[in-house]
């Protein structure tokens, strides 16, 4: 599996990849991606909610449903058929929007908020968040003993802190 979640929103396409101890957010453009990494070590909370993508629904309504409806009033059989087709397409798209909804994910890390949003099917978000939750808990549990055993592992702690700061993770 290549990318864990693809989000499409009005600002562009975003892909999310779960690595071992961090999440990678890729903002796609033509020949390069902007990369943001969110390390799990200091993640405080992950909040997820869903709303209706009203903006998109309105656009589909205006561009597809309204013309379709207008065509229905025509006396020509061709237009009535086209109108029916338009309305069916619009109804299908709106149904998908209502079913999927626009998912928002907000990740708090070290007092800063990272937001993700897009229209995705809920079960994909469920799968992503389940894996992410497990990864965050594991990362934080693994890191806990080395920070509380100050006296014994001073050497190794300083090393790990250094390597931690050497690869900047503030994004």
């Amino acid at each position: 599996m290549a990318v864990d979640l693809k989000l499409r929103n009005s600002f562009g396409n975003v892909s999310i990849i779960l690595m071992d101890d961090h999440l990678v957010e890729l903002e796609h453009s033509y020949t390069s991606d902007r990369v943001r990494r969110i390390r799990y070590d200091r993640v405080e909370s992950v909040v997820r909610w869903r709303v209706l993508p009203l903006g998109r629904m309105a656009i589909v309504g205006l561009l597809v449903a309204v013309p379709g409806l207008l065509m229905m009033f025509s006396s020509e059989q061709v237009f009535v058929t086209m109108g029916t087709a338009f309305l069916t397409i619009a109804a299908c798209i709106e149904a998908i929007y209502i079913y999927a909804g626009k998912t928002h994910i907000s990740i708090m890390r070290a007092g800063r908020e990272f937001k993700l949003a897009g229209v995705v099917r809920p079960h994909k978000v469920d799968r992503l968040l389940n894996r992410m939750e497990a990864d965050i808990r594991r990362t934080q549990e693994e890191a806990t003993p080395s920070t509380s055993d100050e006296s014994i592992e001073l050497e190794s702690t300083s090393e790990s802190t250094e390597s931690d700061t050497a690869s900047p993770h503030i994004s």
Partner: protein
Amino acid sequence: MSDPPTITGFRCPGCKIGLEVGDSERTRCPNCAWRGTVMTFHPIDLKIDGGQAALSDDAACVHHPSKRAEAICAGTGDYICALCSIDHGGQVFSAEYLNTAGANTAGKAFDRTLDRPDRTVRFYIILCFIPYINVIWYVGWPVWVSLGWMKLLKARRLSKSDPLMARLVGPTQIVLLAILLGVVSLLFLVGSIYLMLFLFDAWSEGFASD
């Protein structure tokens, strides 16, 4: 040996008031009727420890008075110790600065851009089929194709060395792109040979009628 802090609250995304997390993940804001799921974790405090102890005549770290200063933070101008300093693009910042005032500015600077040669290959392939560019620049075609091959090799190299690229560009994708580029290269070769034969024919016919 204190346990890591447990986060028990969060800010309601709807109305920004502080809320407590209940027993269940599903939460509802009593103020604005926002509903969603909340997961809370045990964040690890950034532990700053170790570093070189400062001698009496050494300059000391502004955040750790007992540690010797090794650098000057480019954001604040403070003396900082080895553990506080974060190197970025030839400049040294203090961890403290990056976590506070510099969080936004430095945060942007730390955003990395990932080159996507795989997508550039697709771009070059498409360029081959844009008529205008190629009518004027018939020479353009071999340029796009060879650039495409170069980018494809780069994509292959990156997908082997960079774990992130490995997730984005799998071996099948490389093979598919190679096939596509191969077809385009072949098209170009066949087209060139055909054109040459055609020109040669036209030329010899013109020669004969003279």
